[in-house]
């Protein structure tokens, strides 16, 4: 199947295809002439009907003297992940923009310009995306000659945001960075005409932490999974395992079967706590707090279970390159089965109640519309796409871990609105329970970690897709020297789904904004510190840890 796709491309474009690397039946790398990137991508996206995944830039100057741009596509039915590679000169790199023909590439190309200084020629909206407005021009943090801890000269903290002009007849309404119903720092500038949203400008990346730079400059293969786990508070295990899989895929490490089953189980446990949480949040956003409380109560035993298995409620610390760190004992398996049984019966009650609830239905039906065409254009993934009737699921389409050894259904719904997403997420819980039970039945004995005796080879390209609770998470890694990746790119599902938000909220009421955005789960953590000041004397007292503890234990306070 891979060779057929390659032949199709060769027949059509001939000499523009410079080199092809057929890794296996599921992976294909094609090096092309950068001058013909636009027609080739158009052909792949429109005529061959591929799904656009992400564009990735890499500074390869220390090794080959060139910049690299990878356009990632996926053929879901044929189970192929497909990569188009353009080599650009090391001086003044420029590449034709594909955002005109593939709107989903908009952010990725702006990011290329911000972080690597690769100019997307002909980009329809070439505004700064990742770097703050105050950042001086000409400094590109992901270039290899930019130190990880450097703050460039000329950083202007006083500079204000550079917003677009409000369209005539509209009023700009700021939504965020800190909005009562949206706990995460991201700013939507809504253009409102009366009560209807006519458009918006998005400003985000306020919590950009530079993890990709850290992974290629300070940390090593052993450390990055732990950091990747902290990309997201909900899909942490997904990102850590996806990084491991990308490196294993590139370096050719074979994971032991037992570790694959354990990975599958933990990924599903993560989905099991994420879906009830999201359904609860969706109810909370439409003002239905009773069900919010109940959904979270039902979720809680899953968190305790995860804590028993891995030692932590959320950051499992599960994945390392070549395997996993925690094993299942027979007692744990029995306990997990019991928790799953309870969850299944309780969740069935919730589904029975919610699926007929006219109030929730009225608030979510016809809101945040994402039909099949929008899913294709913007590359939407996960429950958003499945709620719109697009039958994609990385677990089935690009099997990883032990998903090729278990049976499950991919849930789709055809209403294309938030209600469709609620239904998809509610029903997927049963599929996850089903998958975990099958894994317990089929789990073999054996080692947990592959025996890696030599250094991982450098310069190999590995990429993988994992189905996170929110959608497909795509990780890309080039292995490198010094026991660390040369380039690592994590594309979370929200990266694509957020780009669809302006189209989803267009011409809708401003009151529906929150629930349209509801697919983005808020996560925030904070540590309270305390100091007491006597108002009369002005004396300050610092509390020690022991005092704080005993104070919190005593009811009098």
């Amino acid at each position, binding site marked *: 199947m891979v060779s057929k796709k390659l032949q199709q491309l060769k027949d059509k474009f001939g000499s523009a295809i410079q080199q092809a690397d057929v890794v296996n039946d599921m992976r294909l790398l094609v090096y092309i002439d950068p001058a013909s990137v636009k027609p080739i991508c158009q052909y792949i996206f429109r005529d061959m009907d591929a799904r656009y995944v992400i564009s990735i830039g890499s500074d390869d100057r220390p090794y080959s003297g060139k910049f690299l741009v990878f356009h990632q596509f996926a053929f879901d039915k044929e189970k192929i992940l497909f990569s188009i590679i353009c080599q650009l000169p090391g001086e003044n790199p420029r590449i034709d923009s594909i955002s005109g023909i593939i709107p989903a590439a908009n952010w990725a190309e702006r990011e290329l310009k911000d972080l690597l200084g690769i100019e997307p020629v002909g980009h329809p909206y070439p505004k700064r995306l990742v770097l703050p407005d105050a950042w001086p021009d000409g400094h590109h943090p992901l270039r290899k000659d930019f130190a990880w801890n450097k703050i460039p000269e000329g950083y202007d903290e006083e500079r204000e945001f550079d917003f677009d002009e409000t369209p005539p007849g509209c009023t700009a309404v700021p939504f965020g960075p800190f909005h009562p119903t949206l706990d995460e720092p991201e700013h939507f500038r809504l253009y409102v005409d009366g009560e209807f949203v006519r458009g918006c400008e998005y400003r985000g990346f306020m919590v950009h932490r530079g993890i990709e730079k850290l992974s290629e400059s*300070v*940390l090593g293969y*052993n*450390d*990055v999974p*732990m*950091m990747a*786990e*902290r990309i997201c508070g909900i899909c942490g295990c997904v990102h850590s395992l996806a990084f491991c899989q990308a490196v294993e895929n590139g370096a050719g490490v074979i994971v032991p079967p037992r570790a694959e089953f354990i990975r599958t189980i933990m990924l599903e446990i993560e989905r099991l706590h994420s879906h009830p949480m999201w359904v609860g949040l969706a109810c909370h956003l439409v003002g239905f707090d*009773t*069900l919010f*409380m*109940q959904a979270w*109560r039902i979720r*809680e035993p899953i968190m*305790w279970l995860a*804590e*028993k*298995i*891995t*030692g*932590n409620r959320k*950051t499992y*610390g599960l994945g390392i390159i070549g395997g996993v*760190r*925690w094993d299942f004992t027979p007692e744990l398996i029995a306990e997990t089965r019991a928790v799953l049984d309870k969850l299944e019966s*309780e969740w069935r*009650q*919730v589904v*029975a*109640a*919610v*699926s*007929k*609830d*006219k*109030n929730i239905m009225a608030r979510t039906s016809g809101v945040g519309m994402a039909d099949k065409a929008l899913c294709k254009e913007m590359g939407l993934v996960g429950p958003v796409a499945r709620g719109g009737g697009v039958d994609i699921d990385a677990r089935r389409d690009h099997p990883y871990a032990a998903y090729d050894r278990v049976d499950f259904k991919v849930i789709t719904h055809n209403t294309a609105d938030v209600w469709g997403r609620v239904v998809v997420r509610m029903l997927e819980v049963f599929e996850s329970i089903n998958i975990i039970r099958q894994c317990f039945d089929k789990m073999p004995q054996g080692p947990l970690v592959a025996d890696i005796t030599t250094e991982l080879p450098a310069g190999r390209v590995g990429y993988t897709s994992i189905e996170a609770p929110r959608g497909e998470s795509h990780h890309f890694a080039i292995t490198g020297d010094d026991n660390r990746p040369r380039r690592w790119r994590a594309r979370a599902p929200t990266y694509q789904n957020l780009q669809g938000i302006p189209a989803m909220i267009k011409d809708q009421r401003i009151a529906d904004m929150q629930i349209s955005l509801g697919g983005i789960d808020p996560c925030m953590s904070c*540590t*309270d*510190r*305390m*100091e007491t*000041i006597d108002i009369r004397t002005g004396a*300050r007292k*610092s*509390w*020690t*840890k*022991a005092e*704080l*503890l005993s104070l*919190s*234990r*005593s*009811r009098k306070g």
Partner: protein
Amino acid sequence: MSILSKLKETAICLNAGRVTMPYPFESKPVPERFRGRPIWDHVKCIGCAGCANNCPSREILINDICQEIRILHYLGRRCTYCGRCADVCPEDAITMSHEFENGTNKITDLQQRLELFMSTCQRCGRCFKGQSPLEALKMKGYRADDLANDRWVFKSTAYLPGQPILEDLTIELEG
């Protein structure tokens, strides 16, 4: 129909009853595998620096202040309790304790500092910690010559619960 679904939702709530735990007034025991704050055992530690090499948040520092003395400093600020240090420790000198209530305004409450006496190999010049009790005693006697120093060594090499090791690092909150 909607009335029926509301009744079902009410039934879910009534069946569940009250589930809130009275934390922090009563704390619940944590499971066996729980990963809390890492704690170093200065007796077992051989100063191999494996933990420092494998710490994803780069929270463990190793300083060789001379050929014989190696200082291991756990900073405890942005530690994520991933437990990689305990995984790679060849001597099981690090345990992931069950302590998780680490809110404090004194960073020294969380820090640990180990002073390790390293033996020098006459052939290669590199060091490892003297392990025999006799050797350890000798080391102690050597250090005990200086009483002021001895006190400092005692405080810094052992883990003393509830006592800050260094007093100089206090976070002042602005009034």
